[in-house]
């Protein structure tokens, strides 16, 4: 066995593991594991309906942002 193969194996496996770790840390940081029970229930209840719901909430947020932007435009400061 040459050093190169060993280096390759070690670095590839560590890199792949690190990717998983980064994903997990990202999940923790964004609060996806805050509620253990809900996390488990998601496997039971998630369906297209929930996806539509999530999309609807995104729409709502966007609509609010647009509204705010429009309000800002209307407002003209005095020179």
């Amino acid at each position: 066995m040459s050093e190169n193969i060993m280096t390759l194996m070690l670095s590839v496996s560590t890199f792949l593991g690190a990717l998983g770790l980064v994903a997990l840390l990202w999940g923790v940081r964004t609060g996806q594991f805050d509620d253990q029970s809900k996390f488990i229930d998601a496997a039971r209840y998630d369906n297209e309906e929930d996806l539509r719901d999530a999309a609807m909430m995104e729409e709502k947020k966007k609509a609010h942002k647009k509204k705010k932007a429009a309000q800002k435009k209307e407002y003209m400061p005095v020179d």
Partner: protein
Amino acid sequence: MAQVPCTHCNLNFDESVMITEEYPDKTLHFCCKGCQGVYHLLESEGLDTFYDKLGDTKLQPAAQHLDDLHKFDLEGFKKKYIKESEDGLYEINLVIEGIHCSACVWLNEKVLHKTDGIIDATINYSNNKAKVVWDPEEIQLSKIIETIRNIGYNAYPYDASLQEERANKTKKSYYSRILMGVFGTMNIMWIAIAQYAGYFTGMEQRFKDILNVAEFILATPVLFYSGWIFFRGAYYGFKNRLVNMDTLVASGALLAYIYSIYAMVTQSGEVYFDSVVMIITFVLVGKYLEVLSKKHAVDTLDGIIGSTPTEVTVEEDQSKSLVSIENVVVGDIIELKPGEKVVIDGVVTHGEGSFDESSLTGESEPVFKQKGDEIRSGSICLDSVIRYEATKDASHSLLTSIINLLEDAITKKPRIEQLADSISGYFSLVILTIAVITFFAWYFSSGGFEHALIVAISVIVIACPCALGLATPMSTLVGIGVAAKRGLLFKEATFLETMAKSTLLALDKTGTITEGKPSVVNAILSPNFQPDFLLSLVRTSNHPISKGIERYLLTQYESLKEHPLEAIKSIEAKGITASYQGKSILGGNAALMERSGIMPDFSSEHSLFFFAIDDEIVATFELSDTVREGAKEAIEAIKKMGIRVVMLTGDHEQSAQRVAKAVGIEEIHAKLLPQEKAVYIQERQAEKEVVVMVGDGINDAIALAQSNIAIAMGRGADVAINVSDVVLLKETPQSIYDAFRISRRTFKAVKENLGFSLLYNLVAIPLAVTGHVNPLVAALSMSLSSLIVVGNSMRIKMMRFKK
């Protein structure tokens, strides 16, 4: 009659009392208007899949709520609870009441999402807390709360910034750090296995180098990211001129790390990256468990604070106004409506009614109050409108002081730890000094930097936190495991140690020594006694005495028949009256009998219940709260251990004496208020006693928080469980004794372990200092010493218990 479940809440009721709706394809039953309303609302919104998700889970019937929605739009409320974001959105944290299962969470989120103007709503199932973000231009908070109430739940706000945000942030940060630590440790161990194998069978330096570099890459983030907490702790310790456990962990890990880099670069000796990550990860996990238990306590506290009203109705010159509780001054006249919680202490000036004081005294019996009686905050007005004069302002009232005390207890708890830290702190300071002296001595005497460094590192590695560090946690871990198997949950490892050192045991009476429910000990029956009528009568009441009589009747008689009684009237603190086909039926205490002109000539040290038909007493029952099985033996055994046992109770002297005599307690303190129990414990602590307190109710919470070790009964109030250090799932006095035994046995193992590692260090360190040990042998003997410590701790498992 057949019992059918309510279509909405799934609770079973007689079919005759249900609201029934007939449809061609189905029949619906509702237990109340509230449930009916919620069902039709969900159906019309297309949310009836909720019931499929719900399954057999039982809900609370949907209650009709008080008309207090306007308070949510008040300015004071907004200032206290609502956060405004930059883009004009409002955000609030709510505790949602009535959540039983994940289907409830689903329904609430679904409904909130569908409501216009709500931008975001997330509910946490574990603690029933919700965060709602909305656009104030489209919807008002009162409307949001109304929406939640309409579907059968209730919501009240809490102030997350107080404790929760901080607790959450710490929790997340620890969690991320542990993930990194576990990842690093797992991978390094794989590589280390190859290295160990190579050490014994021979390995070429070029392969060794690759493995060393791989370990170095993995260990670096663990040491500096996961281990950051220890470096920070060590830094603060350094600033305050303290050497603590953090210093030991940080310096041990850092030096092993630096030496390993040196060994890696110079290709001399062995690397110790595996020790670095393991030290960091294991100690971190222990710290994390502590953070978790703190977070739980914060959750319950928010529940209590959130359910306290923020405004009260104050009457002034014939007009009523809502005043924020902070603005109420002594002398204000406050109006209480049925179902309202008292937040300010006072004295009744007008009206009379009964109060639920269970959250203060632990007694489930409502207390009757009339003009001139004192009202304490925390109690709930049950049945009538009452006016009372405030005698204290909000911040001095009982409820606020209880909440403040609990908050203090949560934040101040880890005091024993500091002691443990200081001991290992001295140790690490001594080791560090010895290592430094060794380094310079070797450097100047032999002149070789490398050799001097290796010897110094050997000293640190051989005395590395492991032996001493493991001595305590390993035994306590085993001790906690043994205790958990017996249904005793120690919340933190260090509590075992404190408990082992305790000298005084304070016991609450009701619910701790006794069962907490009275049962019949003696019955005198006349030939005219008809148990059917008595059963019908006591079934109309929820009073503990009535329940005791009911249990007695059901065990004594078979096939009892219930009669439909008329004119049932429950007379506060006295008993129940009713009539049946013209006969008058009375059941209650002597006061009720005297009221009806009957003079019972019977007295007893127990509670008495008389049953009269047509003004003739046909049955007399003596009831007593039974002492828990095995209480006497357990208390005797605890006393034999040299622990002083006292009883603290809110009950009157006579009944306290009787129970104390039955279980063999000589020292009793009766008629104590919740704070007085705490004061008693404080006084004993001032006399250098280490106090263990056992209790179950909210009334014990302050005393529990004050005591060195607080033990709560598993079925006790949430607050009591949360401020406690030990929870008894098996509510037997025997388990209190077991807790003492396990803690003492564990502490003995800790002492043995400490003694051994001290001896080990006494032998090993001089050898290392004199240069007789190379780092590898040092590491091996360190592992061996750790194994011995682990083995000794395992012996705790061999303890035998009485079944």
